């Protein structure tokens, strides 16, 4: 092997503007090894939770991630309610599922848009993000907020969904469905996207098991796991839906899984609304007096995969230990498999394919080496490289934009 070159990416992520640092060891164009460093934005949330009351922890865990801001409270609620052995009202279960699925739709739309942008399909990016807006508006109508919904509480939810809101929601969903058809067509019928993404960043079912990867990352490799089906919570056992899987394990398969999952989510919300309609307006929460001593484990299926919460209570006001694992924690290490052997221009989309989510957004446009003062490759350049490759494929296939 010849001389290895190190291409440093970060500490700001090439694609999602989040802080972490990759070192790609390259031999020519090929990535032969990689290392990463993280912890740039470690906020010590597990420690903070130990000093909050059980009720307050909901609003802390909601802020772990702005995009999955219902998944963390979901898993936490499952954990705490299992310690206290609470059965929440049906209405609350349905509302929880509705919010959870709406979140999946907006998160997947966001990913489709970003993935399009990294490949040089800026029209796709504009479309997807435009169609995501009504979903966020709907969140504002239902929960009062576009993000960080503060909808959950111990024993139920904090706001009811009225009949009027339900009608509005159905209208938005019908609209989103039409737009999803459009996006699915734009991705699945495009020969350039097929050529660009198939066989890129491939993960086998064995890799998934080795790393413990979850969610769309696992399902794209044909591993049929989904917490909503395997260990049903909220209203998921009442609904008729199927777990979407794809074969191939590449970036294309991951896109396919996410796009088709949106249809399932739309149908699930509609079923929940049907159930809500039949229900008499009633309680949306039960009163939980205190949390007895004990251990609770709760998990929930976030748009990116399983969110895991472990809560230990000693009978007091706050948890004595609260362990949180976000899906990206087990999905990001798979980069070692998906990037190595590929080219540098594929590294960008292969890392984006698991929809990595670190913590919050910080921005920086250029990175300088602190010793030499020389500018390293930055996010914009890396994205350009990725877009160039798509252009080349376009030329080869003689497709005009």
């Amino acid at each position, binding site marked *: 092997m010849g001389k290895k070159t190190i291409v440093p990416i970060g500490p700001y992520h090439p694609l999602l503007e989040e802080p972490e640092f990759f070192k790609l060891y390259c031999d020519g164009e090929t990535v032969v090894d990689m290392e990463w460093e993280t912890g740039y934005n*470690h906020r010590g949330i597990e*420690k903070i939770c130990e000093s909050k009351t059980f009720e307050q922890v909901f609003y802390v865990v909601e802020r772990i991630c702005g995009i999955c801001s219902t998944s963390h409270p979901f898993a936490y609620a499952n954990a705490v309610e299992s310690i206290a052995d609470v059965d929440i009202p049906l209405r609350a279960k349905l509302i929880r599922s509705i919010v959870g699925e709406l979140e999946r739709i907006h998160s997947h739309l966001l990913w489709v848009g970003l993935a399009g942008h990294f490949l040089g399909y800026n029209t796709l990016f504009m479309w997807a993000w435009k169609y995501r807006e009504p979903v966020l508006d709907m969140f504002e109508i239902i929960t009062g907020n576009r993000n960080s919904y503060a909808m959950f509480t111990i024993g139920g939810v904090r706001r009811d969904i009225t009949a009027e809101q339900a009608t509005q929601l159905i209208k938005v969903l019908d609209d989103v469905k039409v737009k999803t058809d459009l996006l699915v067509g734009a991705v699945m019928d495009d020969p350039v996207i097929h050529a660009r993404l198939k066989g890129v960043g491939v993960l086998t079912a064995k890799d998934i*098991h*080795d790393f413990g990867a979850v969610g769309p990352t696992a399902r794209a490799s044909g591993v049929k796991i989904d917490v909503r089906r395997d260990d049903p919570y909220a209203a998921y056992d009442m609904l008729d839906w199927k777990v979407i899987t794809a074969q191939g394990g590449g970036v294309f398969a991951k896109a396919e899984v996410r796009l088709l999952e949106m249809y399932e989510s739309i149908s699930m919300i509609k079923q929940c609304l049907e159930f809500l309609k039949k229900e008499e307006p009633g309680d949306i929460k039960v009163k939980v007096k205190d949390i007895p001593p004990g251990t609770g484990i709760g998990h929930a299926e976030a748009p990116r995969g399983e969110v895991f919460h*472990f809560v230990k209570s000693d009978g007091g006001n706050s948890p004595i230990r609260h*362990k949180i694992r976000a899906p990206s*924690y087990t999905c990001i*290490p798979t980069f070692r498999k998906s990037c190595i052997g590929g080219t540098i221009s594929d590294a960008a989309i292969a890392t984006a394919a698991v929809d990595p989510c670190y913590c919050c957004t910080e921005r920086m446009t250029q990175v300088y080496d602190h010793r030499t003062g020389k500018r390293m490759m930055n996010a914009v350049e890396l994205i350009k490289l990725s877009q160039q490759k798509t252009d080349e494929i376009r030329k080869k296939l003689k497709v005009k934009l």
Partner: protein
Amino acid sequence: MIIDEYIKELKEKFSSITKIDIFNKKRLMVYIPKETLLELTDHFFNDLKYRYQIVTAMDSKDGYEIIYHFSDDKTGWIMNINVLLPHDDPQVESITPVVYGAEWIEREIMDLLGIKFLNHPKPERFLMAESWPEGEYPLRRKFHKEDR
């Protein structure tokens, strides 16, 4: 899944198991001394094909509790292995050689609780900054207790 039979079989196979608890719904906790941890992990991960979820470590009264979480996705059960380490000797065999995905979390526990994982392939700092003082572990009970 017939849980009583499962527990009986597991106890027969691993005579070192000290206790098995069922808690909440579909949650099982297996208490085992640290010497036989790797065998049981290997059984869960490679023979039964349970999905590795994460490792939780905490500082409790009797020592450091390390809980390894595995999910049996076919039945929805979460199987936990609980290992107790004494406060004066916080070290345990690393499971990373068996479960590749556990590399990060073991490094994180090293940072936050100061537990030593023997035979870890890359025992370096993970989350804490380079400038963080040696021997300060934020998740230990003693850490800045007066501030809380």
